[in-house]
């Protein structure tokens, strides 16, 4: 195995720059409203693209496991909230679906 250090450091930089730049360029707090809105909806768009189609391809021999696992997480998050419980529920459900295959 070889180290992925270059990826990690680039990724660190790509995280640090948006966090640090506004501390030194105050005009960034006066961005026009549509740009603020665009930045605000970005995480939601990111989550949609992060989920699909990867979750279907992750368990290519058992795509149902991915779908059912994600639904389990979503249902728990909707009714109970909280990340930990959603993830645990999802792991358990996925485990049983994979066993059933």
């Amino acid at each position, binding site marked *: *195995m070889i180290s*992925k*250090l270059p*990826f*990690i450091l*680039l*990724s*660190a930089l*790509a*995280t*640090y720059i*948006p*966090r*640090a*730049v*506004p*501390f030194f360029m*105050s005009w*960034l*707090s006066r*961005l026009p409203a549509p740009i*603020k*809105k*665009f930045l*605000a*909806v*970005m*995480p*939601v*768009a*990111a*989550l*949609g*693209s*992060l*989920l*699909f*189609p*990867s979750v*279907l*391809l*992750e*368990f290519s021999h058992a795509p149902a*496991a991915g779908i059912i*696992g*994600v639904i389990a*997480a*979503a249902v728990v*998050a*909707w009714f109970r909230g*909280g*990340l*930990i419980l*959603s*993830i645990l*529920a*999802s*792991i358990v459900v*996925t*485990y049983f679906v994979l066993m059933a295959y």
Partner: protein
Amino acid sequence: MQQGYDNRRQFIEGAKAGVSIFIGYFPAAIAFGLICRNTGLLFADAFLFSVTNFAGASQFFAVNLMASGAIAAEVAVGVFLVNLRYLLMSASLSQRLETQHPLTKALVAFGNTDEVFSVASTREGKVSTAFMTGIEVFSWAGWVSGTVTGFLVGSILPPGIQQSVGITLYAMFAALLVEEIRKEVRYIIIAATAGLLNSFFVIYTELSTGSSFVISMTAAAFIGTVILPDSIRELETSELTMEETYHD
């Protein structure tokens, strides 16, 4: 003397808030450590990842892209886009930070995660450096120690469980998305557009994983900006938010 006492008090207040975030970060970081192990990263890589990035969703995303064979530039662009929202958070925090010393600002900026920001923005008036130090050091410690724990625990988990841990990442994304949609139900349109576009690009075109992601996410965010009314919330975000843990 008074200044020293004040600083210590502020640091302790920050540390208390930081411990709450620590508790929230720890299990999420365990999942990150497990995923690092499962995608074949070295222990040192997983550790350095959390030490240097100190980011939630974007670290999961980066590991995922790396595992799918993306090149470093694609990972960097994707991570940058996922993290663009920090422009807004840091812009807001920078105006409320007491100190204007460049080095202090540079350090405070490093630890300005979604949760740290949420807590700092509930403070009245100016936010002190001592408070930010307390909250950031403890939050960071939670993220790093959770990552290490997850990576090490991975070796003792039975294979069946290891395999189902592959869902962890997506479970987290789904839970985060649901939290967003609970705040603004129309966000589901943006997420669905992004997911459909990305599926289309990945399945029917020759675009790389990284490029598909960047294009579909940007397009969906743009469509969302155009079709949603201006009244939607602008600054709160909830990546990895454990609301119950820091509202004490």
